[in-house]
């Protein structure tokens, strides 16, 4: 059994080496094919990195989703504290800060530049406000809306405002990008299968004579097909590695200016490259697509080549 397995392994190694040798003998053609495959794989990878990086870059803001609950102006601070306590008990609420009318006025006076104008007011026109921070698991649009309605139903509440609608829009944009990524990956994946299938088809036609002779001396379809499948796998793997190199190169070029941009916003964010999982998926995807393209092409075209003595 172990001998059988060893010779099984040996003939696969043989087929693989033969495929590599043949690809190496036509370096320009091989390189062009690899570049086409790499570009087709690099585009979805780039989109994935764009989405991931956008998520990370905005991670700080995404947590800033909160609700401002404006109480009616006749609700005293003590009552506001009491309301905050009962609000904290609601599921989905992380914490609530009470911003008293006086504190809000002081802050407004300090930052708005209307300090002098405000001092002519006889009374504080601002209401007491509760700042409600939802728990991270309650940040979906539905959960926020349900929180909004909960607070809006209190008789002491004048107005509830969700402060981070743009964050939700941004998340929606990311979701659109993610869908685009899936569509692009599917279309370009089909393209990779087609490119590899066509390359293998040409290779089969080029080696028609050799295939005929091999079948003549008793080579099975499986035997004849094996080196072509390896060629497909090598194309897919090579394309995936080249796509990784392209992505790494792009990140290298962008890293410095992006970091500078982030610093100007006071962020320590820097570009992230593909995770091991993303790389694994890229490489496995390349291999599977390469094998599939070669298998379809070889199965189709090898059957039509029968020896004619």
């Amino acid at each position, binding site marked *: 059994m172990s001998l059988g397995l060893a*010779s099984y392994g040996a003939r696969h190694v043989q087929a693989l080496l033969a495929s590599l040798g043949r690809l190496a003998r036509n370096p320009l053609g091989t390189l062009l094919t690899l570049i086409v495959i790499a570009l087709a794989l690099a585009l979805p990878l780039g989109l994935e990195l764009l989405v991931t990086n956008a998520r990370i870059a905005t991670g700080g803001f995404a947590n800033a989703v909160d609700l401002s609950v404006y109480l009616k102006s006749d609700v005293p601070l003590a009552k506001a504290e009491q309301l905050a306590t009962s609000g904290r008990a609601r599921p989905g609420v992380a914490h609530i800060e009470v911003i008293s009318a006086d504190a809000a006025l002081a802050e407004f006076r300090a930052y708005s530049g209307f300090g002098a104008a405000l001092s002519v007011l006889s009374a504080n026109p601002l209401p007491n406000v509760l700042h409600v921070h939802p728990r991270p698991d309650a940040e979906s649009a539905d959960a926020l809306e349900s929180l909004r309605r909960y607070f809006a139903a209190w008789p002491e509440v004048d107005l509830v405002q969700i402060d981070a609608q743009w964050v939700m829009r941004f998340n929606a944009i990311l979701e659109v990008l993610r869908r685009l990524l899936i569509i692009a990956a599917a279309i370009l994946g089909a393209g990779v299968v087609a490119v590899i299938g066509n390359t293998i088809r040409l290779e089969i036609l080029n080696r028609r004579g050799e295939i005929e002779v*091999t*079948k*003549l001396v*008793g*080579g099975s379809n499986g035997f004849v097909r094996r080196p072509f499948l390896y060629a497909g796998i090598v194309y897919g793997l090579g394309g995936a590695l080249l796509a990784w190199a392209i992505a790494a190169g792009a990140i290298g070029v962008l890293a410095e200016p992006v970091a500078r941009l982030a610093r100007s916003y006071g962020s320590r964010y820097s570009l992230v490259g593909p995770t091991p999982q993303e790389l694994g998926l890229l490489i496995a995807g390349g291999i599977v697509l390469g094998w599939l393209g070669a298998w379809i092409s070889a199965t189709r075209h090898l059957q039509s080549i029968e020896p004619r*003595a």
Partner: protein
Amino acid sequence: MIVFDRVSKRYPNGREGLSAATLRVDAGEMVFLTGRSGAGKSTVLKLIALLERPTRGTVLIGGKNTGTLKSRHIPAFRRGIGMVFQDHKLLLERPVYDNVALPLVVAHTPLKEIDKRVRAALDQVGLLGRERALPLELSVGEQQRVGIARAVISKPALLIADEPTGNLDADLALEVMRLFKRFQEVGVTIVVATHDMHLVHELGLREITLDNGHIQNGDNDPLPGMVATR
């Protein structure tokens, strides 16, 4: 070893390659298939090697009805037959060694065994030491001997040759035939298609003559029990 029972082969273009041919070749026998080109010699060989299927009739090889053989078993079946061609069908961009080894490689023979057998086969055809040469670096006669080494390397019980001497001068042709004769002497059944009557008479072996798809002569009784409606 080989039995054709009323075998006809009509090609898709309508040409009748073989008409109700009945013939028999015993194990260990060496016979010539003779006749003008187009008489059906190649058709007989193609039917033996399952490069074609008969339109009508039965072909038995080694006692097995080839009509019941499934396509996926054809490669293994062909590995049991050595084939030699007029144009030798060598892979020109591969060295002699690779060409001769091919039948063993497709049969997944271990590399060490391949090495031993390639040397033995090249020795038998007098080409030991030329392993690394490319076919085009050899003379026509040598190329044909490489083809023969490839045909016998898997020690087939049956060897078929289609005009193996067609491109060779008389001396080389005789040399190739003597080579075949030596394989016959160790028990290989051999069928050689040729139109070189001089050569056939020189060797004095049984001949099966074809004319326009019909068998003209010969003691070709099929096996007992298959006589039926002759």
